[in-house]
């Protein structure tokens, strides 16, 4: 973080709430904790309403005349469409069990970042306009009018929630503030109140197939570069195919892996593994994004972006799909894709061509996670591995929120890591598996202008890494998420410098003994392998 508070300053967190009641405590939109507003041109590409250039830090948000009406009508609509929203608006007892479970509250001490209060910001409007008690008793019943400061406050805190669902794990009624945030952001999008960091990738993904806006040849160039690196390291030239009809498998991964370190090492890992297996697979430049920033805007937008995956699988005539390492991508693929764009009856139930394992757990979506695929290979002894090549790495594993609490993919990646690395230590139990902490920058909050917020939200995760670093000398943080690879790199640099952030398939490829490879001198990053430092 170039400017802004130092780690020591940031760690000075006060959990005492203000003297004034929360409804009477005005919200100030603070530099470093919000993202820039969406640009009109990006919203126009995807035909979103009320597109305009706007700046959250300015007084005038250039709202449409009848914004209250739009918001409340939208709310009514969503209450009718989602039982979750309706029930969650009604049954919170404010027990506070969720209060200190949110990484943003833990890192900021701002009471409005307690999940319960984040939800109450919107719930108070709900009570005022949609419940009898609220209509009659108003503030006494916990209701408040939707005024401009209220709207701004709701907006501000909706974009300080990464939809990680950690709160929902602890709530006795399963109230999921992530769901409420999704509804809230959907409402904000009716008013054009999106952020630049989300709407840009959405527009890119819609037109060009991926968040980064990589055009077909750019994708190929990027992969070409990785192939050269792989050749340098292993002496093997691999030859992946693109948009190839008749391949058995379509492979889709977040585009972040194609673009920036350390994600690229993970992408190299996939390619080396698939090459070694002789897998009949293809990349697609049209469906070149596994992630889905549409999911952070509206249900409809998410569906529009997601549709490309099945459409492309159908066009290419593949049998099934393998998905790469990504977090929210897998929440979408697990809990939404089939419902939106299925049934995928043109595909077959995934069967590993190497082991013959039938993936019954994905028999409807026909899409498996690459760590499921690889764990099965290792279990069946299909890979030759030399874990000692990872000996310099003392590894711990970060569960992504979405693969943990929106899927339950917990042991597969661990099984892989333990087979490709010799040293592995878990972080404290209240910070892993289903209780995992967010990286602090999910749901499109991984911009640079809100770095203070990100570092605050990243504190609980980083602090757990620091713990295992001090206890066991851990120096490597493995994960299965493209956003993690970027955002944890930043939060590690800030909180726990000297920690390497890596995808699981980077570790796999380091350990993988490939047929006909030359004696490896370096790992995928070009760093000398243990024992080869002198060369």
């Amino acid at each position: 973080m170039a400017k802004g508070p130092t780690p020591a300053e940031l760690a000075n967190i006060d959990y005492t709430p203000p003297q004034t009641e929360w409804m009477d405590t005005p919200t100030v939109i603070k530099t470093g904790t919000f993202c820039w507003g969406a640009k009109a041109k990006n919203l126009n590409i995807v035909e979103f309403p009320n597109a305009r250039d706007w700046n959250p830090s300015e007084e005038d948000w250039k709202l449409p005349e009848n914004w209250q009406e739009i918001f409340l009508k939208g709310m009514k609509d969503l209450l009718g469409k989602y039982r979750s929203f309706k029930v969650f608006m009604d049954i919170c007892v404010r027990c506070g069990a969720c209060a200190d479970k949110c990484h943003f509250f833990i890192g900021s001490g701002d009471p409005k970042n307690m999940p319960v209060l984040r939800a109450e910001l919107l719930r108070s409007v709900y009570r005022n306009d949609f419940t009898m008690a609220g209509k009659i008793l108003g503030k006494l019943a916990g209701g408040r009018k939707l005024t401009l400061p209220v709207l701004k406050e709701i907006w501000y805190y909706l974009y300080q929630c990464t939809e990680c669902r950690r709160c929902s794990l602890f709530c006795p009624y399963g109230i999921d503030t992530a769901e409420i945030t999704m509804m809230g952001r959907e409402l904000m999008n009716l008013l054009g109140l999106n952020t630049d960091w989300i709407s840009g990738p959405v527009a890119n993904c819609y037109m060009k197939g991926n968040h980064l806006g990589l055009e077909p040849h750019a994708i190929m160039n990027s992969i070409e570069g990785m192939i050269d690196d792989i050749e340098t390291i292993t002496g093997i030239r691999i030859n992946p195919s693109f948009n190839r009809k008749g391949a058995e498998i379509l492979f889709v991964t977040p585009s972040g892996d194609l673009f920036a370190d350390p994600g690229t090492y993970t992408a190299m890992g996939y390619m080396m593994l698939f090459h070694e297996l002789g897998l009949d697979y293809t990349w697609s430049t049209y469906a070149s994004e596994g992630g889905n920033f549409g999911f952070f805007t509206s249900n409809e937008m998410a569906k529009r972006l997601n549709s490309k995956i099945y459409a492309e699988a159908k066009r290419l005539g593949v049998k099934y799909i393998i998905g790469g390492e990504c977090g929210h991508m897998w929440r979408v693929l697990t809990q939404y894709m089939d419902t939106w764009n299925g049934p995928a009856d043109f595909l077959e139930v995934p069967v590993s061509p190497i082991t013959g394992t039938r993936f019954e757990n994905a028999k409807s979506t026909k899409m498996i996670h690459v760590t499921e695929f690889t764990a099965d290979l290792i279990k069946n002894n299909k890979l030759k591995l030399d874990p000692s090549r990872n000996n310099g790495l003392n590894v711990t594993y970060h569960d992504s929120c979405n693969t943990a609490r929106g899927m339950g993919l917990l042991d597969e990646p661990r099984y892989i890591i333990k087979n490709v690395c010799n040293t592995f230590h878990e972080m404290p139990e209240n910070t892993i598996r289903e209780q995992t902490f967010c990286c602090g920058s999910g749901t499109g909050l991984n911009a640079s202008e809100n770095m203070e917020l990100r570092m605050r939200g990243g504190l609980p995760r980083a602090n757990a890494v620091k713990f295992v670093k001090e206890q066991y000398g851990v120096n490597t943080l493995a994960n299965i998420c493209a956003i993690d690879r970027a955002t944890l790199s930043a939060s590690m640099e800030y909180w726990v410098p000297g920690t390497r952030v890596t995808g699981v398939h980077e570790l796999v490829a380091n350990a993988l003994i490939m047929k006909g490879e030359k004696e490896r001198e370096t790992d995928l990053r070009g760093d000398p392998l243990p024992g080869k430092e002198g060369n």
Partner: protein
Amino acid sequence: MKILLPFVAVIALVFLAYAGVGVAKLHFLFGVVLPYAAIAVFIFGFIYRMFIWGKSPVPFSIPTTAGQQKSFPWIKQNKLDNPSSTLGVIGRMALEVLLFRSLFRNTKTELRDGPVLSYGSEKFLWAAGLAFHWSFLIIFVRHFRFFMQDVPVVLQMIEGADSFFQVGAPLLYLTDVVLVAAVTFLVFRRLAMPLIKYISLPADYFPLFLILGIAITGILMRYVTKVHIVGVKELVMGLVSFSPVIPDGIGVIFYIHLFLVSTLLLYFPMSKLMHFGGVFLSPTRNMPANSREVRHVNPWNYPVHVHTYEEYENDFRDKMKKAGLPVEKE
């Protein structure tokens, strides 16, 4: 204000009943009309609320998975916290409703210099919540002795267990003590923990004070200012058999108790107390986590405008050809 007001409201309710019965002699209103109205509002209100919730569909399968998924036979699935079958969901819901599974996970976050964050286990809320709800239920069930001509054996057993310690005359019920202690703790917790106090609304204090009022009047009746118990049973039996009677000499305190209960019933369907019904409808808990295996259907799924492959190829055909990518149209 948000604490005082609900407190005063409950005190006012007590005085209202006292004045209504003790002074204005409105026995019939407080002993018959209001209880009937309250029960009717409770039943219809409860059903109505459930119906309204049920009317909104569940478009997506959104269970919060709280353990290992079902994947390979050699990886142990957590069948209760990440259930993939109906049986598993029933188990998960039973744990949630009967034992407050999620609350049992509760931790307390602490930040020390360093910074060092820790998350110690925090079971007080769980214990108090469980103690409160269970003792409330048992007390409720115990009251059935007033609704039935002959007291069934099960009820006698419950009463026996509840007065296990055999102290006092009449025998002290454990649940009476536990209920008052738990509610007091829950009130105290809201007042003593700054963040919980910060999020609390009048609607959070009111039911606690009201239930405390009900418990105290009940206890007074049983242990201190005895009421005419045969008369109480007569009145209640009259209500149950739809031939209401107002026996003489029951004692005002009974009417206060009954009025507070009526208020609770009236208040229930329009308040957060509906969490009792709502928890059964919570999609993050009551759905199997099998959406990759079985397709979940959204009743309002509608076609959307997508950017097709054809349009994409039209945008990039030349670049694709130059890069050696296959194209559909030359």
